């Protein structure tokens, strides 16, 4: 697969914050309808990588392509972001708006849909993910799992063709993780192209088409989940997985 065929393609992406180089030349392709999981220790650059794809961070070097079209420089970031949804670890719902307003804000104000149309679509999405009865609640009234599902619905309401998920279950109580993962599983089954940074190794093993191990700002190793999780080639990958197993997370 080359940059022309991939839904998303990164070539030699570098990003520094001050004197700290977080990404040190990342090459990555994500195909249409492919689910790619990024694993790696905290600080290995997973979140930064996702934020760079969404243009929330500007990269220092390298190139990023979306469906073969370069988006590295000189593009309208707002237009790119319409097609690339991102869901954050801390939900980041708008606390002063109801669930329904959270979901309809961007469709009405960015895509210019009528309120009625946006609401009808939002309600359909909320129903699909078991949130229909929460439409008039404020985010603070919802559980963490419900908030994160609303955040996913909010991103989906823009009908993105690529979803970036940034450790979306890391801020949740353990008993709430499953409801969010099942939503992501459903998206994967529906053919959504996704790039997922996660600490949930069993989820990565079950859902991902491909797993990338990120270490010190580089993709050290990648392959089908069964290969990465059972026969990792790199010593650093083995080390990381041993720590995960010792912590009871796999």
């Amino acid at each position, binding site marked *: 697969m080359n940059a022309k065929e991939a839904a998303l393609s990164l070539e030699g992406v570098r990003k520094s914050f001050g004197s700290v180089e977080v990404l040190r030349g990342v090459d990555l392709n994500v195909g249409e309808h492919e689910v790619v999981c990024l694993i790696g220790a905290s600080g290995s650059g997973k979140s930064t990588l996702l934020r760079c794809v969404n243009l929330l961070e500007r990269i220092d070097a390298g190139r990023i392509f979306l469906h073969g079209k370069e988006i590295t420089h000189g593009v309208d*970031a707002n*237009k790119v*972001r319409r097609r690339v949804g991102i869901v954050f670890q801390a939900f980041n719902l*708008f606390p002063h708006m109801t669930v329904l307003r959270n979901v309809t804000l*961007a469709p009405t104000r960015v895509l210019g849909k009528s309120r009625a149309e946006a609401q009808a679509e939002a309600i359909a999405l909320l129903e699909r993910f078991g949130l229909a009865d929460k439409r008039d609640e404020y985010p603070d009234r919802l559980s963490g799992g419900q908030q994160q599902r609303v955040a996913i619905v909010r991103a989906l309401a823009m009908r993105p063709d690529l979803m970036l998920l940034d450790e979306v279950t890391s801020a949740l109580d353990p008993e709430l993780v499953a409801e969010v993962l099942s939503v992501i599983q459903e998206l994967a089954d529906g053919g959504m192209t996704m790039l997922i940074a996660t600490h949930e190794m069993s989820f990565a093993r079950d859902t991902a088409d491909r797993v990338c191990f990120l270490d010190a700002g580089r993709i050290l190793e990648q392959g089908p989940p069964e290969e990465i999780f059972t026969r990792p080639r790199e010593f650093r990958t083995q080390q990381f997985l041993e720590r995960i197993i010792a912590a009871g997370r796999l």
Partner: protein
Amino acid sequence: MSVDAETSSANRRSRILGDLQGGRNIAVAVASTVVFFAVVIVVIINSAGWPEVRKAFFDRQLFTGSFPEIARAFLLNVRIFCIAEVVILVAALGIAVLRGLPGPVLFPFRLLAVVYTDLFRGIPTILVIYILGFGAPALQLSGVPNSPFFWGVTALVLVYSAYVAEVYRAGIESVHPSQEAAARSLGLSHAKTLRFVIIPQAVRRVIPPLLNDFIGLQKDSALVALIGPIEAFRQSQIDVAATFNYTPYLATALLFLLLTIPLARLTDWLVARDRRRQSGGGLR
């Protein structure tokens, strides 16, 4: 833990009555208040100069005589600060937004906002009123009102917009950056992010300090008298000059208090309500 949390939230219910729990505490509070004020009153009444002061400041007849006229003049104060407050609410938000504009191209606007707030927070209000009140009409600009009322209000707007802009800015900066990231990630522009996500949250947070500034503004409406308009303070000065008795000043003070005290209580109530909401909010 829950018992502790409940008592502490009950204590925060009101700044004044907060720790008055149970009959005994209330009795003690009442007794100490009565004793305290009794002592103050006794000391004042028994002071050597009291009979003179009483005549000069507490003349009942003069009070009732001058009050209606001063109250009428006070309506001008109300007009001054009502107009000023509406303009300030809008202008100050504009300045705060200018100051937060991103990117190197927009640096001049940021600079302008910084210079503006520095300038008008740095000059005493009374000087701004004098300079505008006497200077601006002398320019004889066509199409611009020459009335001291207009320039007095303008001076107050200029000074207080600088303060209120800083209040807004603090509010805008208190909204977590992740809110902006979330809005921008949905494709909202900087302007739309401010309008729909950042500013609504910021304004809610700054209502108490904003009302606090408005209390200051309401008092400073008396300064406009210095360039001519006969508002409550000026009217009381006229009455004092006519009778050589200071009672009209007291009437003016009372009028200001009647307006500022409810506003101060409203501010306190809003702060308390905000706190209650946050502590009762559950998951953030």
